[in-house]
């Protein structure tokens, strides 16, 4: 531990008076998007023809005829799978920044880091397999 020194290599732009000005294009973008949506919707409501029919008023289910009510209880297994999907999906997102900075990392360091990360994911995967979370007939 003796080789450790206090090093602060944190560098970031501190806030200057015109700092928020950098976000002006973003604000303009939001305003234009909102205005465009408003104009298009109101135009179609004002100018477009209105011929409502029973078929049109039905819920859209990819072209299929809707059957029954959508509001009935689903098996809890669906929620479990959905939660697991979100978890692993979010964890997989971290591959992107890793791939982006990979070349700037010390040799093989980035590789082992990601191996470690996948190892941790693997523990989680084995855990849920063993718990039977993916066993549909359970």
């Amino acid at each position, binding site marked *: *531990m003796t*080789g*450790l*020194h*206090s*090093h*602060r*290599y*944190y560098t*970031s*732009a*501190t*806030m200057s008076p015109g*700092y928020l000005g950098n976000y002006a294009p973003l604000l303009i973008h939001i305003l234009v998007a909102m205005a465009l949506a408003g104009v298009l919707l109101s135009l179609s409501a004002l100018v477009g023809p209105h011929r409502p029919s029973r078929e049109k008023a039905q819920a859209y289910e990819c072209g299929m005829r809707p059957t029954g009510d959508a509001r009935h209880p689903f098996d809890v297994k669906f929620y479990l799978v959905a939660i697991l999907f979100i978890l692993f999906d979010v964890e997989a997102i971290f591959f992107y920044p890793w791939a982006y900075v990979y070349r700037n990392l010390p040799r093989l*360091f980035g590789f*082992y880091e990601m191996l470690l990360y996948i190892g*941790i994911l693997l*523990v989680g995967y*084995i*855990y849920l397999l*063993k718990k039977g979370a993916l066993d549909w007939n359970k």
Partner: protein
Amino acid sequence: MVQDLLSRLGMQLPKEFALILPQVQLGIFALGILLTDFLLDRKSRWWNAVLALAGVGFSGKALWNLRNLEDVSAYHSSIVVDPFAVFFGFLFLISAALVILLSVRYLEIEDEHHGEFYALLLLATIGMMFLATGSDLITLFLGLETMALSFYVLTGFLRHRKASNEGALKYVLLGAFSSGILAYGFSLMYGIGGSTNLARIAQAYAERSPGDPLVLISLVTVSAGVFFKIAAVPFHMWAPDVYEGAPTSITASISVASKAASFALLLRIFCTAFWPIRPNWEMVVAGVAVASMTIGNFGAITQSNLKRLLAYSSIGHVGYMLLGLVAGTPDGFKGIAFYLLVYVFMNTGAFAIVILLRREGVIGEDIEDLNGLISRRPVAAILLLIFMLSLAGIPPTAGFIGKYFIFLSLIETGHYVLAVFAALYIAPALYYYFRVVVHAWMREPGGAARPTISVAQGVALAACTLFILVAGLLPDRFINFAGTTLQSQFLQMILR
């Protein structure tokens, strides 16, 4: 352990890695327990506890190697290892070890003995250690959430008990809400400072005028979030329900370790970013402290459930600790650190007695369940007396020394009114702590069976008692240990 292994394989880790090694060790064991749990049958689940204790031990060893460091920051200044972080790290590890020792028998009786319990406890401890060591808003927030999420699950661990589910739901809803407010406050701090680094934010706050609305809103939101986590009035409503519903050993952990971790967060933020605007919050924190002592101490009087009683008492203790921050002197900070250290042992000890009362078919959380403990299990009754004396702050126990430093710091800084309040509230505290003792010592047993003490529980109880008595009679060593926190750079800067 990890480093030896890797260096034998010829791999060199970055030097910075040693700074987070305590957390990494805990992480390895937490993941390991999740897997080994599948290999163990019902009878041999206690191996999980052994593994968890080993994890705490290795983590402690790694932390011990860091004890002489002075303010080393790493990972782009997102963590800083200083005596403050090391002190709190030891505190969390001690608490985790005690809770593990107390849990084995308890979980067997509850029929919920699973490896996940220990894994989650270790993960919560990782979160706490990052709370103590973080010097960056992102690290702090992640640490807080790691801790809080683990505790939400642990609170609801007794799946078949209604109170446990209720407590967990209340905790997760209110906790998520408070985290949201805290995150909002953090975003404002980032907006003001232009950086997530606390030192930089402190500079920016010093340059702003104290009456700046942005500064005030960030102060209010961050304080609300942190006060919720330490269960200070008026953000204390969740505490009694969560404490009552959670498994008793987890209640001990929430009231001790989670509180200490949130105090570490509070001190880190208030003594860096918010220090320049101290006149703005000094009276508010004093008000919150007095309100906490009032609600905590008077609320506890009418409780008949031991866990609820201890929940209110812990709200009162938070009030005392906050007074140390109001004083803002070296004695005040030393007082908070020492108080928290003592609190680990005395409060865990008190909950350990409640755990002893849990038997097959008996919940054992009502104050009536203590009746006649002196004839049923004299040792437990005597230990209960020691813990209650310490909680009330009576010499020669360590609880007295903790309160002494708080009073000292208040008088040094001329806060006589606050000191009088704090002293007066010892009276109701004595009343309800002694109500507990009276039930154990002077009521008829009423046919209740003799509580058994497992070896692990015995070790935990002995450690708690020994510390309270030794630190009460020969406090110098422990005061010095608590005093090391003052050498941290962020406290040095404001105390200069």
